[in-house]
């Protein structure tokens, strides 16, 4: 046995057995290289260089150290300048035949550190002096693996992916290595890395409501006309369900009606009326007069029944089962023989009943200074907003409401969950799910989720009140009541766009570590999914690496009644600005009744994946016949043919052979069904042009595209009619006071 002799051990291990042990130890040395991922090696180098550049920029000039403390720094600097100048002169005098001075090579790029770089452009690298093209081009390294072409314009190098565009949702790192030379043979001080992130393939919906002024706000709306019979001081103004008639209680206590198109006033009850409510069917009206309730048949104009109750009724409304009323101690409804108490008010505090919801299932009341909503089924009350909040109206189906705060108009469900905060104004919620906001100076229209804010008209529009048809409305100007029609509202966002908007706000809040705001987009199930106490997902991601960005990978409508959408969101974690890992969350959103807002109902997270280990899927575009899968890297086309497949819910492969081009794999010949579930599978055989296989099989579950119905956004999604089951507005909004 021949062994390497180590003289250092001679005086340590003199015994033959010890030497034999030493030989065995040496013989057992690792002879093969351990498994090593080259991507790790290069990623760590990039990370070190990025940090080093940060340190380099903070490096204190040497003369400050030499001449410290700080007070001597300027003197030191002056001496330094003199020394440098002397060195420059010396160098110039002794530089021989070149006769030129070497300048540091500065490398910059307008794209460096940008986070939403357009896809249709080359990567620009600027140098502060002429460069040797061949060595500089050879020194360019780009991740993810991308085949590029070079061109020069003066001292600017354009790096153009040969596939055309940059990959979407991708962090690029372009390093100019130390092999680059200037035209005069100078070297770079060190490698320079330019880092940037590209934008998604199509812009995501705006996450925040943005006022969109109408192209030409009008001073006159269509069909604008005065309703002369409604006097100043009228209250309990309400529409007939067919939008043909307006009912109101005069200041003298008379219940009158007037045709919405204008015409003569009909006196229904001459006096004594303190509260009135038109029945959902529109054929009767409940009139509270002199402490008792009369049910008046509107066709025959005769009282068909009378209800007396103790304590005295104070406010009247309708539920689907009949008339109901609020008294001093609670809410009552008609029973078989006697009134039945539905719910009790709190026994302490000053209580004022304000308004029944249109469906009669809730009552708004004030308890001292607090606005409360009483659920007449459970008997439980919920406080809305801060002390002093005022009810401003209900949604037509009674599941949502609006109240005032210092910030504006809050849209909430009857459970008190805020859906949106609208600009200040006097609101009315239509059956078409549009909210009018009136004021002294103008009239706006906005959706309950705060989107689509549009100025309809300029002028005084006090206390607008939609007709049940969602087209006409009445308002107060100068003490008189007017009627008008609204122009066609702006296109409603598709269900998918509305859900995407909610996801974007939710994810942005998480990225900003605003757990409170993010929680507003979770329903009860969603809150459980993100509950830290029960081992749920992290709502707010803390620590290092940190949550640096996210993007939507897939989105689909997976159900209706209620609208349900599923999103796969990729969360990117970064360390020192470099993307290092990702994981995906699958979010299921359900549209709530009332506010019509999408809330996250279910959430599940996938495994944490380390970046830089082969190509990544960065975009998936689904249409009924085709799925396009875009990768961040250029792929070897031959590795794609059997490496990218789509399976249906039974695991059967669907679609034709993949076609590869421009970093995108296209699978055609599909017949994807709405609401069905499919799985994209990318096998580890897929290789990038650098020869690196993807780290592990990648699976992505997605839903079939919605049916084409000519939706507003061109994606062919059916526009829902959210209030098709809503009962007509039979209970008035708060009475106008002007």
């Amino acid at each position, binding site marked *: *046995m021949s062994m390497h002799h180590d003289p250092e051990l001679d005086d*340590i291990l003199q015994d033959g*057995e*010890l030497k034999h*042990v030493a030989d065995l*130890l040496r013989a*057992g040395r690792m002879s093969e290289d351990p498994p090593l991922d080259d991507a790790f090696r290069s990623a760590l180098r990039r990370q070190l260089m990025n940090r080093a550049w940060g340190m380099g920029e903070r490096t204190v000039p040497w003369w400050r150290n030499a001449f410290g403390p700080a007070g001597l720094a300027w003197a030191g600097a002056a001496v330094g300048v003199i020394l440098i100048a002397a060195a420059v002169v010396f160098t110039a005098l002794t530089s021989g035949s070149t006769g030129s001075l070497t300048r540091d090579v500065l490398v910059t790029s307008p794209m460096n550190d940008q986070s939403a770089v357009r896809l249709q452009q080359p990567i620009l690298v600027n140098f502060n002096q002429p460069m040797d093209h061949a060595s500089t081009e050879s020194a360019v390294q780009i991740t993810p693996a991308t085949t590029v072409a070079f061109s020069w314009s003066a001292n600017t190098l354009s790096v153009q992916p040969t596939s055309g565009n940059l990959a979407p949702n991708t962090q690029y790192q372009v390093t100019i290595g130390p092999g680059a030379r200037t035209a005069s043979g100078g070297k770079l001080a*060190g490698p320079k890395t330019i880092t940037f992130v590209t934008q998604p393939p199509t812009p995501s919906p705006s996450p925040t409501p943005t006022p969109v002024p109408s192209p030409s706000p009008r001073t006159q709306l269509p069909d604008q006309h005065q309703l002369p019979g409604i006097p100043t001081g009228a209250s309990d103004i309400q529409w007939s369900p067919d939008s043909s008639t307006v009912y109101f209680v005069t200041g003298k206590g008379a219940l009158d009606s007037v045709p919405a198109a204008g015409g003569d006033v009909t006196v229904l009850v001459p006096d004594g009326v303190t509260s009135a409510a038109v029945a959902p069917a529109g054929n009767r009206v409940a009139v509270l007069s002199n402490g008792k309730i009369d049910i008046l048949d509107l066709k025959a104009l005769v009282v068909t029944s009378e209800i007396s109750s103790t304590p005295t009724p104070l406010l009247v409304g309708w539920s689907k089962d009949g008339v109901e009323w609020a008294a001093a101690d609670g809410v009552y409804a008609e029973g078989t023989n006697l009134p039945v108490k539905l719910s009790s008010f709190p026994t302490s505090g000053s209580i004022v009943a304000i308004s029944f919801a249109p469906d009669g299932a809730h009552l708004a009341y004030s308890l001292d200074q607090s606005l409360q909503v009483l659920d007449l089924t459970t008997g439980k009350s919920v406080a809305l907003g801060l002390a002093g909040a005022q009810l401003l109206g209900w949604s037509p189906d009674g599941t949502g409401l609006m109240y005032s705060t210092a910030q504006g108009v809050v849209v909430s469900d009857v459970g008190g969950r805020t859906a949106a905060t609208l600009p200040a104004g006097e609101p009315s919620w239509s059956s078409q799910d549009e909210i009018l906001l009136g004021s002294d100076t103008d009239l706006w229209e906005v959706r309950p989720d705060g989107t689509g804010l549009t100025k309809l008209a300029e002028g005084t529009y006090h206390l607008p009140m939609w007709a049940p048809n969602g087209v006409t409305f009445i308002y107060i100007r100068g003490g008189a009541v007017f009627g008008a029609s609204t122009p066609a509202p702006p296109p409603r966002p598709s269900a998918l766009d509305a859900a995407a908007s909610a996801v974007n706000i939710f994810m942005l809040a998480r990225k900003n570590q605003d757990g409170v705001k993010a929680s507003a987009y979770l329903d009860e199930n969603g809150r459980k999914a993100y509950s830290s106490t029960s081992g749920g997902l992290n709502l707010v991601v803390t620590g290092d690496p940190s949550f640096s960005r996210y993007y939507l990978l897939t989105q689909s409508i997976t159900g209706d009644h209620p609208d349900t959408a599923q999103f796969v969101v990729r969360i990117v974690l970064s360390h020192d600005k470099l993307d290092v890992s990702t994981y995906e969350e699958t979010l299921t959103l359900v549209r709530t009744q009332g506010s019509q807002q999408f809330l996250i109902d279910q959430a599940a997270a996938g495994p944490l994946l380390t970046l830089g280990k082969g190509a990544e899927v960065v975009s998936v575009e689904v249409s009924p016949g085709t799925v396009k899968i875009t990768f961040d890297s250029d792929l070897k086309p031959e590795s794609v043919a059997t490496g990218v497949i789509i399976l249906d819910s039974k695991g059967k492969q669907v679609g034709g052979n993949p076609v590869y081009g421009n970093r995108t794999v296209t699978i055609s010949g599909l017949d994807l069904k709405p609401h069905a579930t499919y799985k994209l599978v990318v096998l580890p055989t897929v290789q990038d042009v650098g020869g690196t296989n993807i780290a592990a099989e990648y699976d992505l579950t997605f839903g079939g595209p919605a049916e084409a119905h000519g939706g507003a956004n061109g994606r062919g999604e059916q526009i829902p009619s959210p209030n098709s089951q809503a009962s007509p507005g039979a209970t008035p909004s708060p009475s106008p006071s002007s």
Partner: protein
Amino acid sequence: MSDPGRDDESDLVERAKRDPRQFGALYDRHFQQIYRFVYSRVREQTAAEDVTSEIFMKALKAMPRYQDTGRPFAAWLYQIAVNAIADRYRTLRPSSPLEEFHDLSIGGPPLEEEAAHRDEIRRIWVLVEALPAQQKTALVLKFQEDMKIEDIAVAMGKTSGAVKLLIHRGVSRLRDEAGTLRPAE
């Protein structure tokens, strides 16, 4: 006698001390051996990547304070590595069988002899893992990394004499615990 390329390395080190952006050359030069050493200790690729990252990040951060004592720069990296491994894996034992990591394929002797020799090597390295931490580190740096005593002393923060003692005690303990070993030829 100084290592070949020592002057060149000193130049790299001095440049990296002045400008951390020059650290890349040192990384390129030493990555493989440090990663290999770490891997031999932790036996798991992801863990080896984590520890290696930590080592080079610490080295970069401490670069401006590095003092050239005349020993190879690698000795300093090993020092960081030894501490990093000790910190992270103080309570953990290697989980993979040793024969995956130590060369047992020695050609030449007849099959029976070769098998017996391999068995001896396997037994010895199993026993190394059971040694006290300091002895184990000293033996690994000496016999696996083929480092000089003085460099091991730098890496372990000890004197050369102390390292010699650790090696002697470690090898003696291996001899005692291995029982019957073939005598040296």
